[in-house]
């Protein structure tokens, strides 16, 4: 239980970033899940759908909306996955912080 992987500064830095990451990525995941229009520019939509070659306007719009929904969905999941990874990081770095504290004390 006393294995030291990184120093006190490194573990503190990781702890802070992972705490921040959990909060922000969790919230961002929720916002992407509810399709917040504030993130409209952060979506991944293929060029072929953005600027379709076909002239079928209704079809284009439909495809665009579908791609948008898909992108919102995937990004929300990605955010949550990243948040979960940060929870793991938080545990690891918190444990390291504890180890470093014990060594110095």
């Amino acid at each position, binding site marked *: 239980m006393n294995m030291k992987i990184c120093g006190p500064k490194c573990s503190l830095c990781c702890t802070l*970033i992972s705490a*921040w*990451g959990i909060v*922000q*990525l969790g919230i961002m995941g929720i916002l992407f899940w509810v399709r917040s*229009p*504030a*993130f*409209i*520019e*952060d*979506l*991944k939509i293929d060029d072929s759908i953005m600027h379709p070659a076909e002239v079928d*306007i209704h079809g*284009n*719009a439909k495809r665009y909306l579908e791609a948008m929904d898909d*992108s919102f969905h*995937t*990004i929300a*999941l*990605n*955010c*949550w*996955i*990243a948040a*979960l*990874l*940060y929870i793991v990081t938080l545990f690891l770095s918190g444990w390291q912080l504890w180890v470093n504290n014990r060594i110095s004390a």
Partner: protein
Amino acid sequence: MLWRACRGNVFLRQAEMDDPLEDPASGEQVYKSVFIIFFQGDHLKMRVKKICEGFRATMYPCPEAPADRREMAMGVKTRLDDLNTVLSQTQDHRHRVLVSAARNIRAWMMKVWKIKSIYHTLNMFNLDVIQNGLIAECWIPVANLEDVQLALRRGTEKSGSLPAILNRLSTHEAPPTFHRTNKFTKAFQTLIDSYGVATYREINPAPYTIITFPFLFAVMFGDVGHGIIMALFGGWMVWREKPLAAKKTDNEIWNIFFGGRYIILLMGLFSMYTGLIYNDIFSKSMNLFGSSWHGVYDESTIEHNKELILDPGNREQYSQTPYPFGLDPMWQLSTNKINFYNSYKMKISIIFGIIHMMFGVILSVWNHRFFDRSMNIYCEFIPQVLFLTCLFVYMVFLVFHKWVWYGALGTVSQSSSCAPSILITFINMVLVKGYQDHEGEDCSPYMFAGQFGIQRFLLIVALLCVPWMLCVKPFLLHRNNKRRQLETSTKNNLSSKTNFQGRCYRHRSELLQSKEVRGNKNSDAFIVCEKCEYSSNMKQKEKDYQDYDKVTQANGGEGMVEEGGEAAAAAAAAAVTEELHDMGEVMIHQGIHTIEYVLGSVSHTASYLRLWALSLAHAQLSEVLWSMVLQIGLTSGGEGGSGGIVMYLIFAFWAFLTVAILVLMEGLSAFLHTLRLHWVEFQSKFYGGTGYPFVPFAFETILDQAENAVVEQ
């Protein structure tokens, strides 16, 4: 050599010694060789001895019997052992003594420093020859007089000597400035003092800075996300204040941060507030109350147009009630966002700037009143306020008028397309350029009726203020001077005419003159006022230095020794001669002052535009960081785990850049600009900052200094 001298009758054995021996006298390392010589007969013995002495060899007797030799070797060995034990014991003892001394050396050094500082202070005392005592002149805060008296009494009791006498003394010297601060106000006071320490009793800008500093900073740093980071950092330092303060480090950057922890906390909180106003959190907007804009376009319109405009005049597209707090989040998504933000931020920065400067000018009244310079109120303050009001407060009025009057709804003359540019209007006002009102045109270049006349009137008043500031004061001073010279010269004439022993009387008349001058002093603006409640004379009668130490020690803090009371007298004399102002100097001084103010109010107003510029830069930089870094993380990842891992890595990178560039670098730049706005734009209106700080005699500061010196060595 020996062999030859003894004709081969000796037997010689020689060996080099491997280990160098230390010469006990010089401490040098010497290589020696040992040899043993066997010989027969006294004659040879004599010869060998001589040769050995000639070569300065050390000779040891060697018994002839082997048993004796062995005994002797044993004896030598035991003696060596004994010596070794003695040496090691001595070493141990020395070590123990030094260790115990090392434990105490800090305390001893402290004592030495304390005693040294006491004697240094005592050396500055004056010796009272008649009463066999010592006199110290020093500044003491009036509020602490009782403490000092108490300390003196305690000192007398402890030393059992004659009681010390404490007198208050009136002086012409300017007292030092001493602001009592607590841990919260200290950092702000330091900001002010690093520009210049206030003259005694000059108005201190620090209390106002507590609010204006974080606010102006936040105008440039408005972002909720960055504000939260900064406030959390500041809040953590405030929360863990005591343990962090106990941990003394030499890390300069950390000490600066920790010293300014309350400033950082306030700056963070204010940034969160302005961030909410700008509706900006890591360059994204929050739609908390529901946007007032509504897209009501139907499908086909959206499909056929690349860009669409929402018309604020259309009730279906804009609900006509603005977003309740801050900017509407819809702006974040619009393409003309920057145009709108620029117009808004420029105007508010000018408004804040004018308010800030006006506040500074008004504060100068208290300075003029305290220093008894009523002439300055009429000759400087009033024209300054008028000048600022007629030009720049009027411009602020135009801004508000434009905001209220023009809009999307209403008649043509109130429509937004009709609204004139305020900058152009203002420039035309200064150039006295009128417009022709065309009949039949609804759109007028004037914002209200009679604008041209009012503008011309304001301009004339403002221009009149310039010669008012420039000439009135030197003229009044000149007249006062002349009158005084006239009075004294007539008196001189009278006295010399009626007297035969002219010389003697002349002296008296000169005395009279100086008295006269002294009498006039209070009414004159240039003389330092004579309020001297701050200063006091500490007269001490003590038998010897030893007692004195105790007194000063008991004193424990306040009380700075001032060198020489004669300096005060000399200063007073100088002040008297200064009475007769050099007119040329006064004119030049006033000219510089006026030009500085008039040009300054223009350039300073423009200088407040940095609020807008930095705010724009900050918002844009955070947007760029989001779209260049975090967006990659959001968009590049595919479905499933890989996207999450990319997101995980990119987010760490983005967070690092956010802290390093946006919070630290931008925060530092905004901090420096705020500092400049306070030092130059605000304080130049009223603050001289030509005083010198009150440095009380305290062991704490002396020990700190001494320890720092030791560390540097």
